[in-house]
């Protein structure tokens, strides 16, 4: 019985809880004030064709749009004139690029362990610029989900998995403590191509606290989470969430144990 309790507790502690956070700019109150956020894409250096990269990035954006039921992101065009160096500038041009000179472009990041870099500019209460730079110097990018699941990071990485995560940062999300979520900073699987409920709630919160209906919201779900009092924008709060969830999940287990004991006593 004790083992059952330990197992229940273990499952409880490792299970999902709502705990999305905001990145530094969004935490200070900055939001995108209109949607969709259009990004220019330059697939040069990716090792993949323009069409492949555009398909994967569009797919990742589509998942944020479908999940949140708001058209939040859009690849405006493939634009070969945008580079990693120009993309980092605060010029109001949102960009996605691949850098073959990542050591040069990393600017304070550890180039040996960094797979992709994401940055967002905030001007007062408005997000004004965002960029994603994929490391194409030491990472081999791939779109093959099945094979990517078995590859080591030194060999290659799944473009859609990383794109989904980085696009969450573009929207203003930080890292979540929810295991298996796209916005978790760590992965237990090498391919994570679907948003979790926690990711979706985070995206919806940002959309609704920002554009105030100026976006192309196509669902009433979005408004349900706006201004939700349980929203955590501080990872320090996640402990209490885990505790609360733990009690909720232990309750049925306790009832089961109680019922079994009662049945044993009756027999």
């Amino acid at each position: 019985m004790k083992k059952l309790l330990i197992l229940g507790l273990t499952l409880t502690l490792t299970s999902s809880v709502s705990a999305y956070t905001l990145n530094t700019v969004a935490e200070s109150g900055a939001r995108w004030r209109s949607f969709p956020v259009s990004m220019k894409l330059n697939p040069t250096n990716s090792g993949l064709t323009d069409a492949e990269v555009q398909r994967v990035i569009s797919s990742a954006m589509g998942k944020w749009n479908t999940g949140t039921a708001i058209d939040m992101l859009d690849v405006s065009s493939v634009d070969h004139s945008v580079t990693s160096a120009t993309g980092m500038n605060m010029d109001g041009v949102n960009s996605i690029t691949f850098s073959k000179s990542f050591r040069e472009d990393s600017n304070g990041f550890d180039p040996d362990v960094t797979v992709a870099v994401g940055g967002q500019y905030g001007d007062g209460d408005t997000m004004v610029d965002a960029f994603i730079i994929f490391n194409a110097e030491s990472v081999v990018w791939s779109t093959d989900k099945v094979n990517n699941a078995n590859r080591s990071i030194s060999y290659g990485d799944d473009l859609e998995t990383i794109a989904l995560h980085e696009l969450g940062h573009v929207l203003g999300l930080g890292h979540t403590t929810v295991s298996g979520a796209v916005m978790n900073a760590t992965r237990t699987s090498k391919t994570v191509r679907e948003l979790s409920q926690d990711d979706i709630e985070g995206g919806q919160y940002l959309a609704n606290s920002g554009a105030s209906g100026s976006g192309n919201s196509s669902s009433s779900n979005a408004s349900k989470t706006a201004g939700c009092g349980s929203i955590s924008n501080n990872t320090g709060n996640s402990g209490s969430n885990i505790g609360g969830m733990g009690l909720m999940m232990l309750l049925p287990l306790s009832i089961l144990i109680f019922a079994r004991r009662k049945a044993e006593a009756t027999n």
Partner: protein
Amino acid sequence: MKLYVFRKVLILMAFMTTQIFASTVVQLSDEDIISRAEYVLKGHVSGIYTAIEKGNIPFQYITIEIEQLYKNSPDRALAELDRIVIRQMGGTINGMTLSMDSLPKFVEGSQVLVSLKQDSNGYYYVVGNSQGLYKVVNEKLIKDTQGEGTMFVRHGATGEIHFEPGQIKEVTIDQMKTKIERTITSEEY
């Protein structure tokens, strides 16, 4: 037999919940970080300055007054320096803020233990990004890497399994000194 199966399940769960990679940054152990670093030092952040460079990009210059040097590069020794400056993208200037995910966040006046490397331009950066920064609080080292929410699992002295939340990592300075010494010694052999 049941106990054996139960242990197997726990071990399997341990593997499932152990962190493999950060999604944008490869996860490193303390030993990995120390081994990769040219310098490991304790000091206090005496200043943070933000400037616009490379066109229109904010860069932070973080000055650290060195109090203790635990690892020194044989090629580029820091022995004679009493301060170093870390340069990284980000910061606030002219009302504009650049937020960079995964980069370490320094606070002016705080005491830190940091693992550094020098880039080809001569600037210092933190090894493993935010993983290479410990804050010194009450003689303890605390690493609070945002998003490290996965449960950690370790085996105890008698083989028992412990589950620990991974959000905040805390070690004593003595424990870290021992890790540094061991890592440096193993590198020498």
